[in-house]
């Protein structure tokens, strides 16, 4: 099984801007790419998963650095990023839209570009597709149950959530840090994630995630010529610093292990569903 999909190169990287690093989940690659895009004119609008009351996520079209920084960080709940893509082009009049999403959302936007049945004059306005690694996601009330019932932190007090080292981490604005073992979060997972066969956003121009790189750094796959050109420009402009992925720990081996474990587990579920006559995406 192919763990990562096609890519041109893989690096470890982080944003040069300290303010981005402070607010971002990992190396701040998504926020740095967006802010660089808006400032350099390569992008004129970007899709973000905005933070709302109660640490809820809501898709939004952003056109400023402030909006991007406010949305930095991972919300472990479904955020329908595709749903605002047409309004970026229509209401906001954007011509060069930056998109970020989980692997499934990257698949969605690729399909919308290739088969734009209800997407008039949208495909040629998508300037950059960024993907974030994803093992699984949670419905809002699933995340809420994990945070409030298992970790004892109120949603309104959450400043950051993270998954790493086998645990789900919650950080409150009062300085509390609580964890629960990842296996206790399984009942709250979005079940449709169990047929998902993509861990590293294989169809993005640039994919990024935390796994494989040290804390505060991100692992990046550059997949398309467009993605490569974009990343090179960011490096030249000093927006991010990069390291050879082979020089960092734990490196791609761990990414590969996780990607394969996701794919193998979900391939079984796909087979099971087929056996009992249920449909699967084809």
């Amino acid at each position, binding site marked *: 099984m192919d763990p990562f999909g*096609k890519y041109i190169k893989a690096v470890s990287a982080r944003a040069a801007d300290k303010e981005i690093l402070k607010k971002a989940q990992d190396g701040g690659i998504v926020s740095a790419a967006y802010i660089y895009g808006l400032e350099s004119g390569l992008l004129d609008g970007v899709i973000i998963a905005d933070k709302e009351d109660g640490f809820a996520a809501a*898709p939004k079209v952003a056109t400023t650095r402030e909006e991007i920084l406010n949305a930095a960080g991972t919300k472990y*709940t*479904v*955020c*329908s*990023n*595709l*749903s*605002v*893509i*047409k*309004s970026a082009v229509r209401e906001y009049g954007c011509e060069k839209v930056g998109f970020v*999403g989980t692997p*499934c*959302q990257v*698949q*969605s*936007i*690729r*399909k*919308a570009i*290739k*088969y*734009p*049945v*209800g*997407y*008039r*004059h*949208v*495909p040629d306005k998508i300037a950059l597709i960024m993907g974030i690694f994803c093992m699984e*996601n949670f*419905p*809002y*009330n699933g995340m809420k149950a994990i945070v409030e019932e298992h970790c004892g932190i109120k949603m309104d007090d959450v400043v950051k959530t993270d998954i790493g080292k086998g645990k789900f981490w919650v950080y409150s604005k009062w300085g509390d840090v609580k964890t629960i073992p990842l296996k206790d979060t399984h009942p709250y997972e*979005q*079940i*449709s*994630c169990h*047929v*998902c066969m993509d861990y590293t956003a*294989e*169809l993005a121009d640039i994919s990024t995630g935390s796994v494989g790189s040290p804390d505060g750094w991100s692992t990046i796959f550059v*997949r*398309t*010529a467009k993605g490569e050109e974009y990343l090179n420009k960011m490096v030249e402009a000093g927006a991010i610093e990069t390291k050879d992925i082979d020089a960092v720990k734990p490196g791609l081996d761990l990414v590969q292990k996780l990607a394969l474990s996701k794919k193998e587990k979900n391939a079984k579920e796909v087979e099971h569903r087929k056996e009992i006559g*249920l*449909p*699967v*995406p*084809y």
Partner: protein
Amino acid sequence: MVRVAHIHMSGCTGCLISLADTYEKLLDILGAVDLVYALTLADEKTEITETDDKILIERKIPEDIDIALVEGSVCLDDHHSVEDILTTRKNSKIVVALGACAASGGVTRFARGGQMSQPAHSAFVPIGDVIKVDLALPGCPPSTESIVNLIMAALNGDMDYLEPFAEIAKYGKDACGCDVIKNVIDQSLCMGCGTCAAACQVKAIDMIEGKPNIMTEFCIKCGICGAQCPRVRFPELVQKIE
């Protein structure tokens, strides 16, 4: 040259306008095909036959059409309409249901007669209820790009690309917002991307806590949401990126 016809049934011409919205690409397409019939764009071919007791004036759908782009549904209460669609099938190699009305009835699903000057005209069906359809392209109207892609693929014989549209021709006549409920959410496949919501041209879909909520009273049964959802159909060629 490939002979293309645009056949106007009970439609609004919006599908043809969407095709024209391609500007320079329309010229490419027109340059690559022989537009043999399109009442809106080309002189109609009128045949006048005079017999002893009457003069018959007919606008004839030509023979030997390679690709017929049919827009609009069929009014079963209008015999001209029924004849036109039968002739179209007889004379064409590939019949494309262009847009919601032709493919799934669209807004004409709600027609129920009673209006002047033809109060008896009450029954409207997608063309697939009367003839066999090869490809169906949903949308009200389908996007400009999707029409161009479909025509170019048909001209190039790119059956891989066209396969999803062949399937919609077979199974998509009952399109509705309920499709994403029945075929995606209820099958434990919806991961909440929001593609359906953005695609819906009448904003009948709201994403609420990561799942589509269909406001059925707004839905015009255009079939876009179901066609656009990647969790029903994810063609292999979408996976090819450069």
